[in-house]
């Protein structure tokens, strides 16, 4: 906590290689901006021309020396001057151990593999990672300012399947230091926001009006002893109150828990530890672990359109439950005690569900209870 008081924070490990001490996010940006000059922070598209005179001035040497340096230290000095090479081909007689080992691995792969192409998931991962990089806004006012901070957050899904025992699925989001916490909250997509409560076998068309997101708007983030509650709407409740009361009612070892309004804070205001697990809770008890894995200055190769943030750069591919009839589309309905279905519960896509359970006028056929179903893989 001592780092909080100091003006520019220099984060350091609290637990080696695992997480840092708590520091104020904005102070990190301040610290870097103090140390760096305009060329380091520049987001301009073109690299700055480096004139001999500038070099001479910076290095305190003669302009002639600068010209010489340009020649001697040119990157061409490191590249082979010979014929064009194909980067896909590893040269035969390489003395580099890395290449010899890689060559062996690739050859082994070639022998065993049947189809040699990127699988869908790999393509998707790459696309997600790079789709926005280097993007610039059409409107110059949306351009991100120099020296802005970029936070990388891993947001975990609240799943406890056995198969995810070791590697919990998560999505990775980039947010800007100047962005409000509510902007992140609004961008987190979770199936529990889309749940629809109730039984709709007699009026299936009315189901979409009862989405949980619109009914229960409360949510909070928890960072370093402070609950950041979403209080933007009058119907929002302070979800953290029960927790704070619980911790105060007995001596639980958690003192000074505070509750503040999420909408009053941007990420720069937060004090947190990088690499430390925090919490996002919504819908009363849908709990997502959040880990800030990285904070750094924005770079000109990053996406520079402010409107595209929070930017999703990675998400887990979840299996979807398919319709029992067509076996093709993702299930939208689940029925219980269904006289028309072979299983209980039984899953249907919207089209098949209506075709099977209703006649042309929309009258209910047979006996069943129908509940809207939201598949966890819906965001794939």
């Amino acid at each position, binding site marked *: 906590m001592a780092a909080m008081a100091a003006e520019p924070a220099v984060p*350091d490990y609290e637990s080696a290689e695992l997480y840092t001490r708590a520091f104020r996010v904005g102070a990190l940006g301040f610290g870097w901006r103090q140390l760096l000059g305009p060329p380091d922070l520049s987001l301009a598209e073109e690299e700055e021309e480096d004139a001999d005179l500038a070099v001479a001035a910076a290095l305190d040497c003669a302009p002639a020396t600068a010209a010489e340096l340009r020649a001697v230290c040119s990157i061409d000095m490191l590249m082979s001057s010979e014929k064009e090479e194909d980067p896909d081909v590893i040269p035969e007689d390489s003395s580099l151990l890395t290449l010899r080992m890689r060559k062996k691995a690739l050859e082994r792969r070639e022998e065993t593999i049947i189809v040699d192409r990127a699988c869908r998931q790999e393509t998707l991962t790459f696309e997600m990672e790079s789709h926005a990089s280097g993007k610039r806004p059409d409107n110059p006012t949306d351009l991100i300012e120099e020296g802005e901070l970029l936070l990388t957050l891993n947001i975990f899904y609240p799943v406890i399947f056995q198969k995810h025992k070791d590697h919990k699925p998560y999505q990775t989001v980039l947010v800007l230091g100047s962005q409000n916490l509510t902007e992140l909250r609004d961008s987190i997509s979770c199936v529990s926001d889309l749940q629809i409560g109730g039984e709709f076998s007699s009026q299936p068309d009315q189901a979409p009006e009862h989405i949980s997101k619109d009914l229960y708007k409360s949510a909070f983030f928890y960072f370093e002893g402070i609950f950041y509650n979403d209080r933007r709407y009058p119907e929002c409740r302070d979800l953290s109150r029960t927790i704070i009361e619980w911790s105060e009612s007995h001596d639980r070892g958690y003192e000074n828990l505070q509750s503040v309004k999420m909408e009053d804070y941007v990420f720069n205001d937060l004090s947190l530890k990088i690499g430390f697990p925090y919490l996002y809770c919504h819908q009363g008890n849908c709990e997502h672990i959040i880990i800030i894995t990285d904070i750094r200055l924005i770079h000109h190769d990053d996406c520079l359109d402010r409107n595209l943030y929070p930017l999703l750069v990675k998400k887990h591919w979840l299996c979807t439950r398919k319709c029992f009839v067509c076996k093709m589309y993702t299930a939208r309905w689940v029925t219980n005690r269904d006289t028309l279905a072979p299983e209980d519960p039984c899953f249907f896509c919207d089209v098949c569900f209506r075709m099977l359970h209703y006649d042309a006028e929309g009258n209910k056929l047979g006996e069943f209870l129908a509940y809207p179903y939201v598949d966890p893989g819906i965001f794939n």
Partner: protein
Amino acid sequence: MSSLPGLKEDCEELLGAFQQADTVRFERFAELWRERRFHTIFYGRIRALERNKITKKTLDLARQYFFPPYSFQIRVGALYLLYGLYNAQLCQPKQKIRIALKDWPEIQKFHLDLLDSQHYDAAYIFRRLRLARAFHFTAMPKLLTYRTKKKIEENYFKEEFKDPSNRVNSLITNDVLEELMNVHDHYQKMKCVISADKSQPDKALSLIKDDFVVNLKDITLEHQEWQQSRMKLFRNAKVTPETENKKKEETWLESEGPERASALARIKYKSYSAVVEVSKSRRHRQVQLESSESGPSCGKSPGRSKKASRTPQPARRGSSEVRGEMQVAEETVTRHIGMPVITEEDSDEGEVSLPKRRR
């Protein structure tokens, strides 16, 4: 690192050859690089996603040699290596070199050293990298995911690349000595306070040798003097042949040979003594100390007393050798905090602290 077999060996081989060449000239480095065709390191049929990962890891590996405890020459080599790798990579857009805020002062110091000793090529290349915006200015050197590793990677340092003689100096810096004396002083005073006879501590409290600190100081000074004289010998022996080599190499800079060599030696020496300076972790701790003043056990003299009662951190000493250079600062903290305990241990056996710490 584990997923990039052979890379560490390749980098160390190149840096080792550079060290053998006994120079910091980029020209020589480029020769060595070309001999090995090092730019082909990224070659092979690799898809974009994998390539990004490999490149990130490669830069991450090379970056480690850019920081202490590696010697000045290895660090210059690492700078050239980063320059080469950054430009040779096949990623589009290029992967960046991550620099943590806590490491930046070290780089600035290094840069000043380069300028002071007129290693224009190294300084120029550092400038090129910055202008090419090859760095990500980050909070921490790595992404932290709170994933506890099942197998802790042995992150050893290549001995030959390190500054050979800075261990004692980095363990017992002038500040540590000074602080140790203060702590000892304070310890004595505290003993007096709680003793029956206020002017002199009880016999029962005499648990350490009173002259321990003084002895330690003397030994350290002796060691420093011995080292300096050895350095002088080393330098004198080296200057003549080195000058000859250098003259050939550096004609393009038209600089005076002997001047260069002595400047280089000065810088090398500087980089030894550089480690002795206050690490930033200490400053941090100073703040902590002051903030903990309000504690009840403080008694008369504020600030200092806490230190003695501070519980030692969980023992990390065994592993401290092998951990990343980023931990150097933290390690220092650990040692500082553990200091009073060590004092007691050592006193039982006499003044064996030096060999013991040297490991």
